[in-house]
């Protein structure tokens, strides 16, 4: 269990982490999500006692990190896969970590085997690919067989097979009753692995909720309709009390799972439909909406910002704009 209370880190005027309070619980994977520069890594460094908090407190199983006498058996962390001496072999890198915590040397061979680096154990780390570096970092985190695991962007630079492997590893670790805390800037990645979600933006807590609840509240379902008889369909739907919003171009959008009702209405009134498709807004979009105001480094496409939503192929932005009066996504459930 990792408990953060009022954790704050300031670098001069700049607030990197602002009053974070949440708990990472055992037995599940907790995703730590935020755009680049949101303060995820700073938070993780404070958990490990590397950076001193300006204010607030973080405890691991009730204790401060520096009070842990054999920290690697409590908490294993992958912060930066490149944080190895390039001239040292994978085996020696892990051995010196093991020795610092009185972990037997045979454990080094075990973790090398677990991450699949046995064949290159004697090779210098500077010859490693990014994916192999990540594996070495994960081997270091697993070295003490700890109850708590913390991974900072573990899938960065991994090939699909490696990503699959990490996901399964994290799930297995959590199923064994361990605490797994993993950061990412990719919502799609988290949706596949995390059970619980902590979202931060510009160092501030934006959400602390279960994944299932986040999905339920944020993946808006709607029906996309295209018809050559647009005015007639609008009349019919209005009569039936179904609210319609303009989609992109010719299309119309109707909130909810009303595809069948719309189809039946159209058939009854002999209206030709070119498209009738149920849609779901992606979680990635919900995440971007949630953090839109707090993204530190915006990329601009050369046009003045039309709205909070970047163009995504489908024109759901307009529908939301109409339906929700340009409020950012997530502002509703953030209260709840």
């Amino acid at each position, binding site marked *: 269990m990792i408990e953060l209370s009022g954790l704050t880190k300031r670098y001069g005027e700049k607030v990197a982490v602002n009053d974070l309070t949440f708990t990472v619980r055992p*037995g599940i994977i907790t995703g730590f999500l935020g755009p680049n520069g949101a303060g995820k890594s700073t938070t993780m460094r404070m958990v*490990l*006692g*590397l*950076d001193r908090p300006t204010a607030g407190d973080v405890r691991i199983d009730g204790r401060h*990190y*520096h009070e842990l*006498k*054999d*920290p690697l*058996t409590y908490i294993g*962390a992958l*912060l*930066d896969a*490149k*944080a*190895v*001496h*390039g*001239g040292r*072999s994978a085996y*020696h890198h892990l*051995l*010196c*970590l093991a*020795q*610092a*915590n*009185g972990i*037997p040397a045979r*454990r080094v061979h*075990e973790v090398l*085997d*677990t*991450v*699949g*680096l*046995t*064949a*290159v154990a004697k*090779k210098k780390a500077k*010859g*490693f*690919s990014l994916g*192999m570096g990540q*594996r070495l970092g994960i081997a*270091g985190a697993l070295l*003490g*067989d*700890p*109850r708590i695991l913390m991974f900072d962007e573990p899938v960065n630079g991994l090939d699909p*097979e490696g990503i699959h*492997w990490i996901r*399964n*590893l994290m799930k*297995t670790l959590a*199923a*064994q*009753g*361990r605490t797994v805390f993993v950061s990412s800037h990719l919502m799609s990645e988290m949706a596949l692995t995390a059970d619980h979600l902590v979202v931060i933006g510009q160092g501030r807590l934006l959400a602390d909720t279960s994944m299932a609840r986040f999905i339920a509240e944020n993946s808006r379902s709607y029906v996309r309709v295209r018809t050559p008889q647009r005015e007639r369909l609008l009349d019919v739907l209005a009569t039936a009390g179904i609210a319609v919003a303009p989609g992109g171009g010719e299309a119309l959008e109707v909130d909810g799972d009303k595809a069948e009702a719309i189809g039946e209405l159209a058939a009854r009134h002999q209206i030709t439909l070119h498209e009738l498709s149920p849609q779901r807004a992606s979680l990635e979009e919900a995440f971007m909406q949630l953090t839109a105001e707090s993204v530190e480094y915006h990329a601009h496409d050369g046009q003045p910002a039309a709205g909070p939503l970047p163009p995504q192929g489908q024109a759901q932005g307009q529908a939301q704009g109409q339906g929700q009066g340009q409020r950012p996504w997530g502002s509703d459930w953030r209260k709840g």
Partner: protein
Amino acid sequence: MSTPQPPMPQAAPDRWAAPGPAYAGYTSPIPVVRTNLMHAVASEWTKIRSVRSTLWTLGVFVLLVVGIGLLVGGVVAGTEADLSGSNPLELGFFGLLLGSMCIMTLGVLTTASEYGTGLIRTTMTACPSRGRVLAAKGLVFFLVSFAVTLVSATLVAVAQVAMLPGADEPSGEDWLRSTVGVSLYIALLGLLSLAVGSIIRHSAGAITIMIGLLLAPLVIALFMFSESLKDVQEFLLEYSIPNQLSVFYANSLSDSGPSGWGPLGIILGVTAVVFGIAFVLLQRRDV
């Protein structure tokens, strides 16, 4: 990419595959050990012996000390000069002066290179007691550099005494000073570099500072021609590291200034102070 791709583990070993009791909290089969300084020392020993830079710096050091020592001995032995009244051990000075730069480099690298790679974060995660990490680094480095210097200096001393039968027989204290004495001095100089590396956190910067400290006072003093700077010049000459080193061979640029075992006391004091600063900064700063 020429590196072999690691085999992908299709199934994780049993430990990971077996789903444990949910929520019961995980208990590891790995023995829990209350760690102490010796664990950190073992870790630092593994670190220092598992990188090529140790081999290189110490190899070049031995080459310089022994090579130059034998060379100078050979040259002196080849001349017809009357050697009576001179101490053959003092010919070891030149090799050690040059070699000390290797020890200083290794000292800096022991601490500063970890900041360059980011490894220091992993190190401090494995051992949250920062003072213990610095102490272990210092201890391991000091013992290694002292041992290597002692062996090289003794080797050169024995060879030179054998090569120069015409010279005086050195006394017991001469022997002690030119072997154990200089070795302690060089190792402490390396330890000072290690502390500076920990403060500066940048290998090239710290090495530059140390080389400057070694050479600058002497070079600057050489060009102090003004009469009003006489005292400063004298101080710089007498307390420059090369002059302090030569005191171990009962040589000195002047009659005042450090003598006997004095330089050892000076370097011990300076190293202790700088090490203390490194220690305090390490506690205060973010890693």
